[in-house]
């Protein structure tokens, strides 16, 4: 933290390196100082009451395989299957992924849908000035976060999935392991007494300059619903609001269309899971 705060010139933090190192190889970034934080933390994921605590340096592969993650946030464990390839998952970290703030990030998408928070540590480095930032307040635009330049994410806190919570992750990608064209992460809670929807969170990647959480008013219409048509209608409303940009892989119009299709599929699957149906 001292190195970061005291750096003359441009300093960058090196965690998994799967996003930063390509930029160095392509001569797109020329930091004066590279701080390798890999040796800084050897902790494993842990369960803190009802909160899944993931050290920022937790590798993607661990998210895929660790029992606590598979049980505490199955949405994340599922989505990580879509992140990169074996080599990327052996090195890439959850903290690095969130700090990189790629607008197509599967992990960002799941973190949003799960109501996750990050712990950001400042230059004092002593834990006293740590602040807890909801992921919904973290992303600020294309590859930008609200973190200060001298702040580092140390932990990711995810409310552990409660029984009766349904989840679903859907992604459209042109080639397996590539950046998502559009990805949707959904969590759904059903009311115990009648199995109607009591809460729903929909996060989307690939549809804006950042991963976005659908406005709660768009899913408000789902509350108390038991019908698939309501889910489809909600998906349509959510997609309508989006204004995705076009790029070489997909046009904005196609992304919006995918958002509707994948959101509908994800809502249906999440609700089915919540109700204990086989999917």
């Amino acid at each position, binding site marked *: 933290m001292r190195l970061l705060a005291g750096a003359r010139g441009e300093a960058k933090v090196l965690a998994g390196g799967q996003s930063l*190192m*390509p930029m160095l*190889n392509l001569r797109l970034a020329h930091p004066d100082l590279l701080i390798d934080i890999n040796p800084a933390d050897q902790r494993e994921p842990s369960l803190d009451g009802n909160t899944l605590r993931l050290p920022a340096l937790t590798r993607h592969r661990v998210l895929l395989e660790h029992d606590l993650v598979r049980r505490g946030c199955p949405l994340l464990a599922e989505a990580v299957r879509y992140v990169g*390839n*074996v*080599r990327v998952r052996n*090195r890439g970290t959850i903290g690095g992924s969130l700090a990189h703030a790629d607008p197509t990030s599967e992990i960002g998408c799941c973190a949003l849908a799960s109501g996750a928070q990050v712990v950001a540590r400042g230059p004092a480095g002593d834990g006293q000035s740590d602040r807890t930032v909801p992921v919904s307040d973290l992303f600020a635009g294309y590859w930008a976060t609200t973190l200060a330049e001298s702040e580092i994410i140390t932990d990711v806190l995810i409310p552990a999935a409660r029984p009766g919570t349904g989840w679903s992750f859907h992604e459209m990608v042109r080639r397996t392991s590539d950046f998502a064209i559009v990805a949707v992460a959904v969590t759904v809670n059903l009311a115990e007494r009648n199995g109607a929807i009591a809460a729903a969170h929909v996060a989307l990647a690939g549809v804006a300059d950042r991963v976005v959480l659908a406005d709660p008013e768009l899913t408000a219409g789902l509350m108390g619903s038991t019908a698939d048509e309501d889910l489809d209608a909600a998906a349509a409303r959510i997609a309508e609001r989006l204004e995705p940009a076009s790029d070489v892989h997909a046009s904005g119009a196609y992304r919006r269309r995918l958002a509707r299709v994948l959101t509908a599929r994800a809502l249906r699957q999440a609700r089915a899971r919540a109700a204990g149906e086989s999917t």
Partner: protein
Amino acid sequence: MTQRQITLIVNDRDHELWVAPSDTLLDVLHDGLGLADVRYGCGEGVCGTCTVLLDGEPVSGCLILAVQAAGRQVTTLRGLMGPGEELHPLQECFLRRGAAQCGFCTPGMMLTALDLVRRSVSQGRGRPSRDEIRYALVGNLCRCTGYTKILDAIEEYADQ
């Protein structure tokens, strides 16, 4: 940039090297140590030709700085062979099945496949299915073979 001295353990042998902090592991293995089985293919971590095992795990050599690998076990394909250049059983399977054409992707493929089979067996999941092998290899691109014979070779090895 000031060079610094590090020790790399490559294929069970210690090497004392002077490296620049900005040198990647790929640079040092290929140019510094003359290991031809670790290759530059893209610099983005996408193609897999620079795959090495770092403490037994497949990583992209072009995305790791040499200094980060200091004191750790680095294994390249040649590290799998026996003392008299005896072929590893996986290599025999590749030969038998015609799983290499231009050969450029081959070391990366094999290291990744080996890691998959080892972990699958050691984690009690038995030998990986063909679909699991496909998934594990998505990051190792091949332009020559169409992948079929590579999958055949790995399945044959896994059966053993």
